[in-house]
């Protein structure tokens, strides 16, 4: 799933500026599951903005709504009336949903209330871990189902580096404590699978042009096109 975190309130306020009719728009898919931008969180942000508007006497009106999926045109149709009535949409969807909203209702002002941060999985309650960087050339068939692109701090194709210690990555910052070394995990799992030889051979440089380094990507499924 796609995960996101809410932006600091002051940053949201600065984006909203002096607009008078504000719509906070959540999305009930990924960002709702990671407890950041679903209908409930949209309601909370709307009340915070309303209280602030009352305190400051700005006279701004704040509404909230949520799309079932903000990244698809038909679900945006369902909230079109509210969007049309607003001066600004404060979107709590992921970066894709926010852009869909901005494109669908162009030139409506649409600003983000969240920072979209990863393709992650809920490891346990209230904990998400990054699992994929959408690199366009998946290698995990040879790395024991563990992604070296985002789970190794240096995206090594031939790890581990010299900093791997006790199963932990050399990178430890206050935000990133106790990160597991992906290559240590890969080695252990390949051993358990009796496939160590996959780590003994040298892997060539990765083709980063298939990732975002190659420019915006596009996917067409000819066979699925409606004639």
């Amino acid at each position, binding site marked *: 799933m796609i995960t996101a975190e809410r932006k600091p309130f002051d940053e949201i306020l600065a984006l909203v500026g002096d607009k008078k009719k504000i719509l906070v728009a959540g999305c009930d898919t990924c960002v709702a599951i990671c407890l950041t931008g679903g209908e409930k969180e949209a309601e909370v942000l709307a009340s915070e903005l309303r209280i602030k508007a009352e305190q400051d006497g700005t006279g701004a009106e704040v509404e909230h709504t949520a799309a079932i999926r903000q990244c698809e045109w038909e679900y945006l149709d369902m909230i079109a009336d509210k969007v049309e009535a607003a001066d600004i949409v404060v979107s709590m969807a992921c970066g894709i949903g926010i852009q869909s909203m901005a494109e669908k209702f162009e030139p409506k002002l649409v600003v983000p209330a969240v920072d979209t941060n990863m393709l992650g999985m809920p490891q346990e309650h209230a904990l998400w871990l990054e699992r994929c960087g959408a690199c366009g050339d998946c290698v995990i068939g040879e790395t024991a189902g563990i992604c070296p692109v985002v789970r190794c*701090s*240096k*995206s*090594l*194709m*031939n*790890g*581990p*580096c*010299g*900093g*791997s*210690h*006790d*199963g932990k990555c*050399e*990178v430890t*910052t206050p935000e*990133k404590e106790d990160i597991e*070394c992906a290559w*240590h995990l890969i*080695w*252990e799992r390949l051993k358990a699978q009796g496939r160590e030889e996959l*780590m*003994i051979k*040298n*892997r*060539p*440089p*990765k083709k*980063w042009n298939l990732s975002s380094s190659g420019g915006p990507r596009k996917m067409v499924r000819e066979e699925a096109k409606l004639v």
Partner: protein
Amino acid sequence: MTATEYKAGTNLEKILSEGKFAVTGECGPPKSADGSVIENKAKMLAGYVDAVNITDNQTAVVRISSIASGYTAMQNGVEPIVQMTCRDRNRLAMQADLLGAHTLGIHNCLCLTGDHLSFGNHPEARGVHDLDAINLIEMLRRMRDEKKFDCGEEMDVAPKFYIGCAENPFGDPFEFRAIRLKKKILAGADFMQTQCIFNIPKFKTWMEEVRAEGLHQEIKILAGITPLKGVGGARYMKNFVPGMDVPDEIVDRMAGVEKGPASHAEGKKLAVEMIKELAEIEGVAGVHIMAVEWEEAVPDIVEAAGLLPRPTVA
């Protein structure tokens, strides 16, 4: 061996190829445009080491570039081994810089992954990591031996490099470390310098694995030494430097002497003892002395270890 048979023909390559015990040093460029720092360090080390590593934005902190500093070192009497990390450059920039280093007369290169950006002074920068160290070694070997760029295109004049790599015998998983060295040999590394060794018994165990695979015959191994100035440095390395293994008895030994001239003397003495012990290990072809910001200790250590005069090779 005639000159034409050398891969790069550097002093370091010749000494190691002739089976002489090599001594390399290390020099960290300054965090300013003051090139005289390199000049002074190079003058201090000239005649005491066979070549000197010039670090590349060491610990992810911006400094004078390794190639520019390597050139300064060369002009001041020491052969440089320029380090190149995969952290700050993509494959285009690396190849361009390597071609440039060759034209400046620099022919030793040590290929590294590089410490993570989060350790340095620009933690907000984008880490490149287009290649990893093994990819870099292979790219450099193909440039040298096949006259090919990474993309496969041919070039007229190939850059000549004696290719080095680093390995940490104390990194985990321990059982994989000798295999990783083998991967670097396969990629094309000619010599290897280890992370600083304090735990000699563990290093010996690692060398047994290396010899069991015959790797010491395929690559020249230089054992890394860092002279300690005092107990503070020993504790810091034990607790804060990733992948470092400093046994308690070393910390205790340094704690037993007064900080200052006494601890400096003890640190040098310890380094000399360790060099002598490492030189006895089968498959150790030389030592790499990393006295970063304490370069003046190197001449004393090399002399006391009986490694002077340094050999001259034609």
